[in-house]
C-alpha cells in the first residue's frame, strides 16, 4: 500500500512549516470564533479544539452554523472576530488559497469539480504533471488509476467526470483532496448522495487517511455514522457550540437532546383532521424517473413521500404538476379524469408546488422578494393593460407579514435572505395564489429550527381549511411524524405504504434502501 500523499507530488511546501503536530496534540484551535452577517449571528463565539489525527464529528440541524464554520475554516468567508491557531500559530485563513496551502481542505456536499474533464484531469487539476510544458496525460491517468484502485473505488480514471453518479464524483473529490498533502480534511455531509456501498468505500478511505495522520472533521446528520467513525463529537445548535463529547462517553439520545433542545412532539406540530373528499388520485402514473405510481390525496391529510435522493419522488411531483410529459397512467382530480399537460393547467386545477431546490426551481434570486411572491398571481393583479401597483404591493406585504419573513422591505432581493426566509417566500407565492393541493418538496432543507416549526404549523392551518398536502422529504423523522399516509419510493417505484405510525422507522428505511 502506497501512502496517498506520495502519489501527489511537490506538496512539501504545503505542509505546515516543518514541525508536524504529534498525534493527539491540538492542531487547530478556535477561540471565540464569531461570524455575523449584518445583524444576524450565524456563528456565536465558539471555542473548539481539533486534535491531530482524530476524526472529529460535528452534528447539528440545518441552520445550526455548520456550513458557516466550514466556510470560516476553509477561508471562503472571513470571520467577524476571534482567533484561530494552526499548529500553535495564529493564522488569518482569509482566502481559500491560504487554507489549502496550510493543508486545510474540504470535500463539499455538492461536488465542485469540472464535469467535462476526465477523472484523472480533475484529480490533477491545477497540479498537472508536465514535461517541457506539455502535459503527461497518460502518466496522470495511470497515477490516478493507481490511487483509485488502491482505494478500492473501482472507478475508471479516464472517464469523463460528468458521466459518473454524484456519489462517485464525491469519491473522486475525496481522492483528490487526499492526494494533495492535506493535513486537515473536512467532509460536509458526504454521504447525502452516496449509496451504501459508496459510503462504505468512503469510510474505509477516512480511516486510512486517519491512520496516515490526517485530521478529519466529519459533518453529518446521521448519528449512526458519527458513532461508527468519530473519536469526538461537537454539537452546534442555532449558531452556538453547545458541547463536545468523547464518543465513548455519549449516546444518541444525549446528542439529539443537545442538537434540538426540545422533544420531537414540540417540533413536529401535528393536528389530525378528518379526511374529506379525494382531491387527486393517480393510477399507474409513469413518466421520466418514476413508474406505475398509484396514490390518492384527500382533503385534510398529509401524504408523505419518503425515499433516498433520486428515488423518483420529486420527479413524480413534477410529473403530476405538468412539468414533465407523462408516458402512462391516469390522473383524477376530484373524481374527474384530467390531462395535466402544463404547469398552468395544474395551477388552474388547484395544485401548487414548492419545488425541491429553492435556488434552481423555486426563486428568482436576483429579483425582489415582492416580485417572487407575486409571480404566480400577476394575471390576477392586472387591470386592463397594467398591473395594479397598490394591490401588488399590498399582496406582497401581506405575505411578508403573515409568514413573518424577516426583511426590511419587499424590494430586497431574494438572494439576500436566509434559507428559512427564502422557503417562506416560496410558500408565500402559493398562499397568495391559493390551491387545494400543496406539494412541498423538501420544505425544510437549509431551514432553521424555528422556521421549521412555523412551516409545520402552517401545514396544519392549510389542512384545517380543507387543503391536502403531499410532503416529500429525505428526512425520515419529518415525514414519519407528519404524514397521515406514508409512501416509500425506491428507484422510481412506490414500494410501500403505511398509515400514521403503523410502521417503525427501521421498516420504512429498509424499504427505502431495499435491504
Amino acid at each position, binding site marked *: 500500500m502506497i501512502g496517498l500523499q506520495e502519489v501527489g507530488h511537490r506538496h512539501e511546501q504545503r505542509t505546515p512549516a516543518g514541525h508536524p503536530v504529534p498525534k493527539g496534540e491540538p492542531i487547530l484551535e478556535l477561540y471565540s470564533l464569531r461570524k455575523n452577517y449584518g445583524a444576524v449571528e450565524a456563528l456565536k463565539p465558539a471555542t473548539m479544539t481539533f486534535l491531530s489525527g482524530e476524526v472529529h464529528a460535528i452534528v447539528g440541524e440545518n441552520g445550526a452554523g455548520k456550513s458557516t464554520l466550514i466556510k470560516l475554516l476553509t477561508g471562503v468567508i472571513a470571520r467577524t472576530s476571534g482567533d484561530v491557531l494552526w499548529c500553535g500559530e495564529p493564522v488569518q485563513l482569509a482566502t481559500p488559497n491560504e487554507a489549502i496551502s496550510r493543508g486545510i481542505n474540504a470535500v463539499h456536499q455538492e461536488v465542485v469539480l469540472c464535469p467535462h474533464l476526465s477523472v484523472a484531469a480533475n484529480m490533477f487539476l491545477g497540479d498537472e504533471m508536465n514535461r517541457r510544458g506539455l502535459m503527461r496525460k497518460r502518466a496522470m491517468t495511470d497515477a490516478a488509476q493507481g490511487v483509485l484502485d488502491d482505494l478500492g473505488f473501482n472507478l475508471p480514471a479516464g472517464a469523463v467526470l460528468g458521466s459518473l453518479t454524484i456519489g462517485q464524483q464525491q469519491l473522486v473529490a475525496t481522492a483528490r483532496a487526499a492526494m494533495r498533502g492535506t493535513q486537515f480534511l473536512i467532509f460536509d455531509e458526504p454521504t447525502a448522495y452516496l449509496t451504501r456501498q459508496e459510503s462504505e468505500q468512503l469510510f474505509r478511505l477516512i480511516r486510512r487517511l486517519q491512520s496516515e495522520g490526517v485530521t478529519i472533521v466529519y459533518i453529518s446528520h446521521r448519528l449512526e455514522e458519527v458513532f461508527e467513525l468519530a473519536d469526538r463529537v461537537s454539537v452546534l445548535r442555532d449558531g452556538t457550540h453547545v458541547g463536545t463529547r468523547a464518543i465513548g462517553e455519549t449516546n444518541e439520545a444525549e446528542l439529539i437532546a443537545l442538537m434540538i433542545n426540545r422533544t420531537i412532539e414540540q417540533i413536529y406540530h401535528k393536528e389530525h383532521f378528518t379526511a374529506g373528499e379525494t382531491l387527486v388520485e393517480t393510477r399507474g402514473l409513469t413518466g421520466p424517473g418514476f413508474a406505475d405510481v398509484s396514490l390518492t390525496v384527500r382533503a385534510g391529510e398529509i401524504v408523505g413521500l419518503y425515499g433516498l435522493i433520486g428515488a423518483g419522488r420529486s420527479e413524480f411531483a413534477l410529473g403530476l404538476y405538468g412539468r414533465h410529459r407523462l408516458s402512462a397512467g391516469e390522473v383524477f382530480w376530484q373524481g374527474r379524469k384530467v390531462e395535466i399537460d402544463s404547469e398552468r393547467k395544474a395551477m388552474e386545477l388547484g395544485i401548487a408546488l414548492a419545488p425541491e431546490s429553492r435556488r434552481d426551481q423555486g426563486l428568482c434570486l436576483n429579483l425582489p422578494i415582492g416580485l417572487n411572491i407575486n409571480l404566480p398571481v400577476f394575471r390576477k393583479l392586472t387591470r386592463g393593460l397594467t398591473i395594479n401597483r397598490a394591490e401588488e404591493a399590498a399582496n406582497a406585504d401581506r405575505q411578508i407579514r403573515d409568514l413573518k419573513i424577516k426583511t426590511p422591505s419587499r424590494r430586497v432581493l431574494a438572494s*439576500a435572505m436566509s434559507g428559512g426566509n427564502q422557503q417562506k417566500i416560496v410558500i408565500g407565492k402559493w398562499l397568495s395564489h391559493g390551491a387545494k393541493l400543496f406539494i412541498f418538496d423538501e420544505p425544510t432543507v437549509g431551514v432553521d429550527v424555528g422556521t421549521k416549526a412555523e412551516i409545520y404549523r402552517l401545514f396544519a392551518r392549510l389542512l384545517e381549511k380543507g387543503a391536502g398536502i403531499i410532503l416529500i422529504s429525505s428526512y425520515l423523522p419529518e415525514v414519519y411524524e407528519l404524514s397521515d399516509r406514508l409512501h416509500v419510493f425506491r428507484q422510481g417505484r412506490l414500494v410501500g405504504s403505511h398509515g400514521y405510525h403503523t410502521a417503525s422507522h427501521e421498516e420504512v428505511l429498509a424499504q427505502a434502501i431495499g435491504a
Partner: protein
Amino acid sequence: MSVETVESSTGPTPRKGISILFGLTLLGLLLFLWLLLGFATNSFWTPNNISNLLRQGAMTAILAVGQTFVIITAGIDLSVGAVVGFTSVIVAWLLAAGVPLWLALIATLAIGVLIGAFHAFGIVRMGLPPFIITLATLTSLRGIGLLITNGSTISITNEAFTNFSRADFLGVPSLFWMVIVVAVPAYVFLHLSRFGRYLFAVGSNSEAARLSGVNVNRTIYLAYILSSTCAAFVGLLLASRIGIGNATQAEGWELQAIASSVIGGTSLFGAVGSVHGPLLGAFILATINNGANLMNVNSFWQRIITGLLIIVIVYFDQLRRRGER
C-alpha cells in the same frame, strides 16, 4: 445548506431608489458632457447641432430599447443592425414596386415580427443559443438583402416618406419623436405590465418562472419579436433619412445598441434593466460622437473613447451591485 445566505445589513435598500439614482447619474453624465461641449465648442449649443444630435441618437436609442428586452431575458440579439439594413431594402423595394406607403410600412414591420419569431423559434424549439441564432441571421439577412438589390441600392422616390425624417414637430426632429413613440409604450410594457415582470423572471430563473405558471416560451417569443420589430422600425427611419434601401447599412449598430443598453445599466446576465437606461446610454454615445466631430477629433479616437467609456461605466455599475449584496 447550500442556499444559506443571510440578510443584507444595508437596512431598507429599496432597489428602485438605487435604480433611479443610477439613472440620475447617467443623466448627470449626459448633462455634464453637454455643458463641457458647450464650453469647449461654439457650435454645440446651436439649434442645428442639437437637432442633429437628437437625430443621431434616436435610431440607436430605439434599437437599444428593443435589445434591452432581450438582454433582460438573459439573451442577446446580434441581428438588429442587419435587420435595419435588410428592412430598409424591403421598404425601398416595396415602394419601388408601387405598393402604397401605408402597406409598405406595415409589411416591413411584419417582416420584423417574423424575424423575431424565427429567432425565438430557434431558441425555444431548436435549442440554439441566442448568440448563435442571431449571429446566423445577421449574416444571412445581409446576404438576402444583397441578393434582392443585386449588390447595389434601391432609391426611394416617395417624397412623403423621405421628407418625414427631415421634418420637425414643435421644433423637435420627428426622429426624436419616434423615440418617445417607442419609449412610452415600452415603459408601460416593461415596468407596468405583467409581461414585463415575466421578462425579468425568465431572465433571473426560467425554471422558477415556469413552475410559477409563467409561459416561458411565449415570453421569449415576445422579447425577440419586440427587438426585431424595433429594428425594422429603425430600418424604416433609416430608409427615410438616407432615401435609399441598402443591405449594407447600419453595420455594427447591434454593438452600438448593446453598448447603449449596457451603459444604461442592463446586466448581460439578465434580469436587470430598464427603459430609461438604454435611452440615456444611446444619447451619451451620440453626444460623444457628436462632440468628437465638433472638436475635430479623429473618428478613430471616437471608437477608442467609446470603448473606454463602456469599461468605466460598467465597472462602476458592477461595484455598485457588489456593494448592494
